[in-house]
């Protein structure tokens, strides 16, 4: 681990205007995320826990620079993503990649998976050895290089999530944002994908933001945890401390819901 943080999020706030209820009144505003702040080093995993409406997906979209915050900064390798020109941002994108929740929706159904996996490389202007790089990424996630010629519907949910991970690591990024990356999978497949993410992290020294509603899953892969509710940070700290001695009653509820043995 190096001293300079890989990712630093400062006072991140995002508000959405809701549809007008009446012509005369100003449209209501929803604060999806308020003052979120953390920093992440290479090789480290930060878990973001929250349920629908907690702002965890908004946080992911802001880190990925899909949308702009109303306040605050996202510093990736000490550069503010939201202060860059679109060209600079596009060049920097190969450094941070994302894995999505729905393994059925995150791959273009009309493209062979080799094409989809190579997309980040082509986007950053690389044209050489694409086939080799795709084969390498497929092997890294436990699939065969021959799978590159197949279409997404020929794979199971767990395999598709592996493909999505292959696409995310092909540019050899420094940061991976995983938004509910195992939530749509069966329990037995979940563990496989979580282990794969940990293997890749060890091999590639990835920093990871792991977003989930499931405290047990977060607890099994994350070094530190941030608990969000209605856009506000309820508590944060080392994963073991939060899980063993939650301070906030809401965290206790989440823990209760995640426990197998009553």
């Amino acid at each position, binding site marked *: 681990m190096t001293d300079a943080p890989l990712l630093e999020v400062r006072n991140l706030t995002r508000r959405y205007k809701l549809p007008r209820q009446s012509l005369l009144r100003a449209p209501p505003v929803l604060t999806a995320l308020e003052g979120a702040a953390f920093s992440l080093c290479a090789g480290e995993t930060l878990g973001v826990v929250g349920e629908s409406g907690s702002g965890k997906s908004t946080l992911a979209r802001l880190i990925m620079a899909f949308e702009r915050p109303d306040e605050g900064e996202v510093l990736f390798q000490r550069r503010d993503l939201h202060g860059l020109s679109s060209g600079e941002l596009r060049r920097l994108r190969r450094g*941070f990649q994302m894995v999505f929740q729905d393994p059925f929706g995150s791959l273009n*159904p009309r493209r062979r998976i080799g094409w989809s996996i190579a997309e980040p490389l082509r986007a950053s202007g690389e044209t050489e050895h694409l086939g080799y790089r795709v084969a390498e990424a497929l092997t890294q996630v436990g699939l065969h290089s021959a799978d590159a010629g197949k279409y997404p519907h020929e794979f199971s949910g767990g395999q598709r999530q592996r493909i999505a991970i292959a696409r995310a690591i092909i540019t050899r990024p420094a940061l991976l944002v995983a938004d509910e990356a195992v939530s749509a999978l069966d329990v037995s497949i979940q563990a496989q994908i979580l282990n794969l993410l940990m293997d890749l992290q060890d091999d590639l020294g990835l920093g990871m933001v792991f977003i989930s509603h499931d405290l047990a899953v977060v607890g099994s892969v994350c070094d530190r945890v941030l608990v969000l509710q209605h856009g506000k940070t309820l508590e944060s700290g080392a994963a073991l401390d939060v899980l063993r001695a939650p301070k906030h009653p809401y965290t206790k509820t989440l823990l209760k819901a995640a426990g197998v043995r009553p």
Partner: protein
Amino acid sequence: MRRLPANFLLGAVLVSLVVGIAALSLVWTPHDPQTMSIPTKFASPSAIHWLGTDQLGRDVVAQLMAAARNSMTVALVAVLLGGSIGVALGLLASALGGWVEDGVMRLADLGFAFPALLFAIMLAAVFGPSLTNAVLAISFINIPIFARVTRASANQIWTRDYVAAARAAGRGRFAISRDHILPNIAAAIIVQATIEFAVAILAEAALSYLGLGAQPPASSWGRMLSEAQTLMYLAPQLAIYPGLCIVTAVLGFGLLGDGLRDITDPRLARAR
């Protein structure tokens, strides 16, 4: 293998019939459609003139075939031209969003509010009536239709995760529109194009009927119909033949479009 819907099959048969006849007319017609022969005018169907001749002694079958070709060409050009402009505008609106999207869609509303016939009459008034102007008018009304369908379908695809993944990969909005959006909305656009093809055939016939489309001596179902109208009592069959052709072609493309929609979007088929 799933069974194909009946409307698709019937539409496909009618469309291949009409398109086949139009294609055949390129290389062969039983007579020259333009050649007049006053002595044999109003001839009854015979071995030489299968459906008889018209008031100027021209062979009806030959004219119908030439008119089919005219009709297909007009519809094809109009749908391709209007469709590609409309699809491009729709993709642009969807990709850029914000004021561009608002602007394009308000323009589309304006286009919808403007009747095609009125536009064609306006073009004819300014540039004189011609088939080209008719094609332009029909293309023009197709633009907002395709722009709307494209934008609505494209907006859905923009919310998909694989589009977000492409953005995360660092791809630009236009590259995403080309590689991800267009292939996934192609089915909807093809369905719309087939239906608009039927509308274009009907519009061409209407414009030619009003004298704003195909000019003599070019053959057109609409013009045949308008010429036959004055002879309704003398030779009603001359109005019936082009009329049947128009019905066949419009029905064929309409059914084919509906059938394609049922195949590509089973949800809509069940809802009906």
